[in-house]
């Protein structure tokens, strides 16, 4: 039975309509030609990723080969899973994994609300000049290298002569605590310096997301009698949830990489038990010890763990929050 529908005031059969709307199959070449400007713009990016991201991946074969100066990366003898066994056989390596996970979790989960809160505070500020000034001030630490930041910390926290210890002395304390050297202070110091350095920069995206929320939603909430706090809770936070989730998933990929520069610079004999992470261990064994295959194998494990975690969390958030990377 033929189905008829009204189209532009005329009665048309389904076949006629399908023929009218049937998409013309266009060849890839024609499409490339049509969007040539965009593809040209894409080309350097593709070259960049091929050279700097995909080409180096070839080096991962070193995880299964013996490195030789004469044989290079691809030509060494095949050693199977030797390096992976070596890693899991050493009981100290479990401590490095634990340290990495603790630092990563501090940075991923505990530090997560801070830039969001800052972005919300900025968005609530009425005086735009003051807001811009404060935003600039909070962004600035991001541009200071970790070498300088850790240098400043060392000076501020030095025993006897550091600012903090001198303050403690002023208030009658001993003032000889070596904060940077003590195990118990390591994680708090890592966390505080990390948040201080990155909070302004990380808040930029959240602030942009807040600005994109339709103002009428706030007006509607206001008419319904919602206070500023209620508006933040019921309008702002739901409005930026997808941004938070996407940024969170993106950062999950590096959960087994606790941030090399900061940790490496803050390491010292006193905190060695808690400050040795997978990244610093790779540098010590791979570069200082010249065990390139072993270091590559650890790096490969790190990458795979990050990839698996990202895929799993992406799947979960896709189902639960209807928000995902792909």
């Amino acid at each position, binding site marked *: 039975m033929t189905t008829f529908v009204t189209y532009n005031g005329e009665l048309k059969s389904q076949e006629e309509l399908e023929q009218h709307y049937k998409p013309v199959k266009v060849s890839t070449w024609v499409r490339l030609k049509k969007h040539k400007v965009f593809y*040209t713009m894409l080309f*350097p990016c593709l070259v960049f990723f091929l050279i700097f991201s995909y080409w180096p991946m070839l080096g991962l074969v070193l995880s299964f080969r013996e*490195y030789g100066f004469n044989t290079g990366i691809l030509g060494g003898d095949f050693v199977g899973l030797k390096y992976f066994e070596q890693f899991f056989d050493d009981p100290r390596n479990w401590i490095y994994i634990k340290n990495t996970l603790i630092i990563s979790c501090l940075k991923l989960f505990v530090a997560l609300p801070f830039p969001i809160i800052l972005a919300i505070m900025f968005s609530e500020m009425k005086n735009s000049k003051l807001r811009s000034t404060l935003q600039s001030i909070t962004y600035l630490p991001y541009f200071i290298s970790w070498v300088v930041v850790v240098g400043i910390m060392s000076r501020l926290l030095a025993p006897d002569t550091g600012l903090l210890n001198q303050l403690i002395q002023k208030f009658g304390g001993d003032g*000889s605590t*070596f904060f940077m050297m003590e*195990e118990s202070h390591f994680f708090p110091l890592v966390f505080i310096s990390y948040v201080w350095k990155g909070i302004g920069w990380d808040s930029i995206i959240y602030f942009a997301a807040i600005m994109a929320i339709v103002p009428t939603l706030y007006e509607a909430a206001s008419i319904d009698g919602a206070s500023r706090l209620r508006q933040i809770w019921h309008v702002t936070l739901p409005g930026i949830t997808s941004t938070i989730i996407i940024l969170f998933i993106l950062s999950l990929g590096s959960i087994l990489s606790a941030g090399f520069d900061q940790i490496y610079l803050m390491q010292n004999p006193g905190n060695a038990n808690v400050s040795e992470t997978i990244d610093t261990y790779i540098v010590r064994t791979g570069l200082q010890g010249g*065990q390139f295959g072993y270091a590559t194998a650890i790096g490969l494990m790190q990458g795979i763990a990050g990839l698996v975690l990202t895929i799993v969390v992406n799947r979960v958030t896709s189902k639960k929050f209807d928000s995902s990377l792909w």
Partner: protein
Amino acid sequence: MRNFKKTFLSIFIVAFTLMLVACNDKSSTINTEKPANAPDTWIADRTITGLVFQSANDASVEMNPEIQAYIKEKTGITLKLQGITSKDSQEALAAGLAAGDLPDFISYYLDNSGRPEMSMLLKASKEGMFTDLAPYLKDTKTYSKYFEKGYLPEDTAKNIMFRDDWDAASYLVHMSINRNVGDIGRKTVGGVYIKKAIVDALGIDPNEITTSEKLYDLAVKIKNGKFVDDNGKPVTVIGPTVWGGMDRDSLYNDLVWTGTTGEKFMTDKSGKVLHETQTNYGIERVKYVQKLMQEGLMTKEFYTMEETRAKEGVVNGSFAIVSNMHNFITENNDLTYIPLGPIKRVDGTNDMVISYKSGYAGWAIPSTTEMPEHIVKFADWLASEEGKLLYFYGLEGRDYELDEKGKPVVKKELLTLLKENPEEAKKLGFRGVGSYWGEHLGYTDMDNVADFGELTWGESVAKEDDTAAQQIAKIYDFDKHLKEARIIDGLSVQSFLYEFEGDKGELTAAIDRYKDDVLRAYYAKDLTEAEAILAESKKNLESKGLSNFTKFIEDKIADGVTIKY
């Protein structure tokens, strides 16, 4: 479509050109045709690029243009040096060797074959990364002396340059070899130093502080004396070395299981070779350090302080005792600090010990270098009298004049400039003023008195006893110590590591890790934790074959090999 093709084509051309430019850097032109007016010392018209795996100051890659022009005129060579900035020179060397793209020659630290760099260099040599230099070295004036019997110290000859397993080939050139046996070069007084003002105030004889116990008693006296620095603040009783925080044995020599090499190996009374972990010395030292720190006698930053802060402390007189420095440190030009001790070693001695002949750094030529004979000839020219004169004294007329014996006489204004503005003086670009570019290829076959008529640069022009260095040498009674000094030659224990374990490097890594573990033990919460750290380190060493290694060394001794500890 045409535009599209054009765009792609232009991008491709630009990318290809960039790639060519990047790759072209190394293949500079070499012209071997000698110009008609060129001197006999002319080698070739080419650039020689060297990559130096040393600290920025030691590498001294910035060269003075006039010095460069002189080299070019005499040899046709343009010398270019590149440095690698890294926290650790060993790390930089490993990365550089792995990257493979090395320039005409490389230079690295190598005091002796026991250094961790050695295993990497041996692996690289074994795998064909370097050129066999033996045939070229034989054909030189200075370096050919390396083939003379007895010229090289045993470690240099047997372990570094002419190894049995290399079948007469030689891939690594060891530097800083003195021409004469037992030559000490300049009169260097290194070790623990103390503020002269404190010595005078307490009325002590610094030479009598010869044990760590006596040093502790002195530290307590200093603390009770409530001495202040130049800014009126209380002094830190025991400060780090003038170069910053590090674990140097000199402060507690009698608690370190070693001789003069610093390697933690020694023989006990029965002649058994032991590592420090197999004795109580490690934990005794930890106890000592923890006691000093807990009682506020030693700065807690003793092992970690940055060099700038340590030097600032020395300049301000903030440390009563500096755990290590020497008499040529410019920060002590006003003689604030004088030598203390020295603390006796575990064997009860504290006399001066001189190496048969020393060695310090080394160089090698990658197998990819075109015409390596040019680099060897250039190194030989730099090590010649003419090359050394240029490197040590700069340019005749500008920096020095020759006396009737043909020896250099330094211009007095340069001595003043060096004293008042060392950075400006350094720009003149020679060793006397602190520029070390010639160290990498030319600093060997040393005999300053014979070559220049003086032991150190400018010594004959400066007034007698003018410098702090000379005064300290007098206070220390250097000449008397030198007269009574012992000359030792032999192979250090760790120089046998490669022979013992080959490329595996597990025991080497474990020995290296022990140093870190001791540092951790110093900062452990309590003695129990420190003991656990050292016990774990011992276990690790044993699992990597420590006992077999010490047995291996004992067998070597039985075979008549001389070991130095």
